[in-house]
């Protein structure tokens, strides 16, 4: 992977042997790539599941691969919904933006040789891997995968196989998987926070950190606080299911004509604990994307980030407010209207820091010398999707409207655009931007642009019509609509969405092909191909084992000094001294 010549003065001894180097490596860059490849595998599984569901919604009687018996049954559909959601949210949107790119680039961007706790880092990854295997194994236990959704609402998730297929061993595997994932995420968060606090290069003050670092730092704090709560909730749920307690299970439940022996618990308690985790989780998925987008927009507009301080504070504000709004997921749970109002107002107040970010992104590219390179295209795509998804969020933040829309496709459209596709666009921007640094080669620009346009148009074709399907009143999570008269008119729209989904999924082959073939055959990348300012661009591509080959940088300026008046070049790296006229940013191979 790393072909850079290594100086003998290198302090961090480079591990030898395949196992130490690539499998049980403690090098943050290798761990980052491990997370990235895990996420790529997970996202493939997640996409296949979603395509199977899409075919079933458009042509219900079609025989499908990977489906037991050929034609999808409603419980199989629900199992696919559950696994698609769980895989995408935990193993793609949590692992890739934070753990893959954060692991790889946070230490380099702050001028450190490693994460604070390299071994803990490796342990986090392998725990995540175990959690993922445990989750996938749920497909193969008797009665298959769970059907209670990624939110595992009780009492459905708490009673065992009496509530339906998949609710036996499958649901238990799901909970165990999530518990392991929580521990892995918590350990990883400790690492990120400690690294950011203590490992910064001299001169790298908080207000000189790239916005990516800000985003990863705040995301780690959210992970730490949120996943510990999910861990506690998961333990209680496991006890309810397997050891007869009644934390979340009410008395007098009759399921399939059987009276359940539980007493006095509350399903709402689960919802509160779950969403106290679940809402910050949304920001865990998207904040790193916001960081990357700010970074990329400045780079390819050749302008400083507009309102850097406001951007950093907005990340903190979004993180903080994210912990106060979990109730908006529960407007239809029968909560007091006064609580609803409070949650509603708090939710809409997140619009303020979000708008700060959006306007500052526009301010950043306004009047810039914009270069439409692939990372830039995806960053602009991110802003578009974030605005679109954010606006439908303001509708849903109002309890009166949410009561109508909550159980419909409108919500599916909203969260897929804003936390799903927008975050994935952040990931694509990050991949196209940092690929030269990670692998020392460039990706094919033409393929990347084709990938962008197909994905951008494709995702809008998938998710925009879903808003209308939702407004008409078609419920989400239903496997079939044959019993609903008014839904017959919507079948053509569903077919359109399914075709769009296939086109978009096919476009991802362009990405995969580009990714893997460029690793081998891409044009060799310079140290700093994008003429960027931050510290990852002053070291070799890919960086040596200790990141800077023993020459650790000091930092003398902010992260986005582009087009500084009076400067000979339009970018000034962070490690360039104030009065340094001798050293000029080099762009050597």
């Amino acid at each position, binding site marked *: 992977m790393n072909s850079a010549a290594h100086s003998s003065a290198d302090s961090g001894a480079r591990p030898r042997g395949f196992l130490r180097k690539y499998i049980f490596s403690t090098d943050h860059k290798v761990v980052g790539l491990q997370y990235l490849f895990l996420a790529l595998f997970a996202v493939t599984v997640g996409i296949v599941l979603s395509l199977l569901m899409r075919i079933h919604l458009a042509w219900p009687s079609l025989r499908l691969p990977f489906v037991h018996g050929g034609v999808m049954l409603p419980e199989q559909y629900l199992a696919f919904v559950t696994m698609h959601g769980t895989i995408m949210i935990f193993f793609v949107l949590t692992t890739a933006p934070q753990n893959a790119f954060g692991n790889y680039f946070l230490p380099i961007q702050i001028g450190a040789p490693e994460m604070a706790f390299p071994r803990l880092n490796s342990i986090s990854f392998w725990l995540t891997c175990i959690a993922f295997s445990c989750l996938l194994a749920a497909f193969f236990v008797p009665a298959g995968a769970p059907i209670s959704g990624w939110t595992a609402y009780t009492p459905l998730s708490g009673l065992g196989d009496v509530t339906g297929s998949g609710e036996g061993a499958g649901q238990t595997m799901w909970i165990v998987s999530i518990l392991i994932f929580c521990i892995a995420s918590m350990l990883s968060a*400790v690492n990120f926070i400690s690294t950011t606090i*203590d490992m910064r290069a001299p001169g790298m003050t908080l207000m000189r950190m790239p916005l990516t670092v800000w985003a990863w730092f705040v995301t780690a704090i959210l992970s730490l606080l949120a*996943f*510990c709560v999910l861990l*506690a909730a998961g333990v209680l749920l496991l006890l309810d299911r397997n050891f007869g*307690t009644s934390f979340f299970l009410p008395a007098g439940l009759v399921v399939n004509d059987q009276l359940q022996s539980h*007493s006095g618990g509350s399903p709402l308690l689960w919802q509160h604990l779950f969403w106290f985790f679940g809402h910050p989780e949304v920001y865990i998925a998207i904040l790193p994307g916001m960081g990357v987008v700010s970074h990329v927009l400045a780079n390819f507009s050749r302008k400083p980030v507009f309102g850097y301080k406001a951007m950093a504070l907005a990340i903190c504000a979004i993180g903080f407010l994210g912990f106060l709004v979990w109730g908006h997921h529960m407007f239809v749970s029968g909560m007091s209207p006064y609580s609803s109002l409070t949650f509603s107002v708090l939710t809409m107040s997140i619009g303020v820091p979000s708008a700060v970010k959006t306007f500052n992104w526009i301010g950043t590219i306004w009047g810039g010398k914009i270069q439409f390179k692939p990372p830039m295209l995806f960053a602009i795509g991110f802003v578009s999707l974030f605005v679109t998804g954010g606006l439908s969020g303001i509708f849903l933040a109002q309890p009166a409207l949410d009561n109508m829309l909550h159980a419909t496709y409108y919500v599916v459209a909203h969260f897929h655009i804003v936390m799903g596709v927008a975050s994935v666009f952040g990931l694509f921007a990050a991949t196209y931007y940092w690929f030269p640094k990670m692998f020392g080669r460039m990706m094919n620009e033409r393929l990347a642009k084709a990938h962008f346009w197909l994905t951008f148009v494709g995702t809008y074709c998938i998710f925009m019509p879903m808003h209308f399907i939702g407004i008409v009143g078609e419920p989400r999570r239903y496997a079939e609509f044959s019993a609903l008269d008014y839904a017959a008119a919507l079948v053509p729209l569903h077919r359109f969405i399914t075709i769009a989904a296939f086109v978009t999924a096919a476009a991802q082959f362009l990405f995969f092909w580009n990714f893997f073939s460029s690793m081998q055959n891409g044009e060799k990348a310079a140290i700093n191909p994008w003429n960027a300012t931050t510290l990852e661009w002053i070291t070799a591509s890919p960086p040596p084992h200790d990141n800077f080959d023993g020459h650790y940088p000091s930092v003398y300026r902010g992260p986005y000094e582009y087009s500084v008046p009076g400067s000979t070049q339009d970018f000034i790296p962070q490690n360039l001294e104030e009065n340094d006229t001798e050293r000029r940013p080099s762009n050597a191979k």
Partner: protein
Amino acid sequence: MPNNLFGRDAEALPSVGAPNAIAPALSADPPQRTYVTGMTVALGGMLMFFMALVSAYIVRKGFPNSDWRSLNVPRILWLNTATLLASSVTLEFSRRRRARVDEEGFRHWWEVTAILGLFFIAGQAIAWKQLAAAGVYLATNPSSSFFYVFTGAHALHLLGGICGLMTIMLRDTRRLARATAVEVVAMYWHFMDGLWVFLFLLLLLGR
């Protein structure tokens, strides 16, 4: 200018034990204070975990027409609490001996701390046995469920602390990192002690 202090001066490193145990980090080794930071952050996470359980306890207990029956905590818990508090005191004895470069005294009190920790765990096991003998199990009543969850989760965490104490006993004593390890394990131990006092009071007064 040395490049490897990562924005911190040597004086800012944790001032634990013998000052000569803290040298500026060598080359690429992370500075020692990261361990203190890491433990502080991790304790924040653990606090969140237990507070989530506590909030569930308060909510579950407060339901109208609740099936909640108050649980009389076994009296041995008083003794266990005293044991754990004593272990924090002996841990401080131990750290003071270390500060005076009294290796013997340090080891002695450190061992006493670990043993008191084991006594605490044994005492908790006796409490569970007593409850089981009285027919109070995990699923008997929400109050007993929470009792077992709190005490079980705390005992697991404390076992981790005992492992930490023992690791330091068994490690090479001249390792540079030891001063930090002592500091970090002590932080963890005191936190678990304080957490137990809180949980005990909750079980006692909030039943």
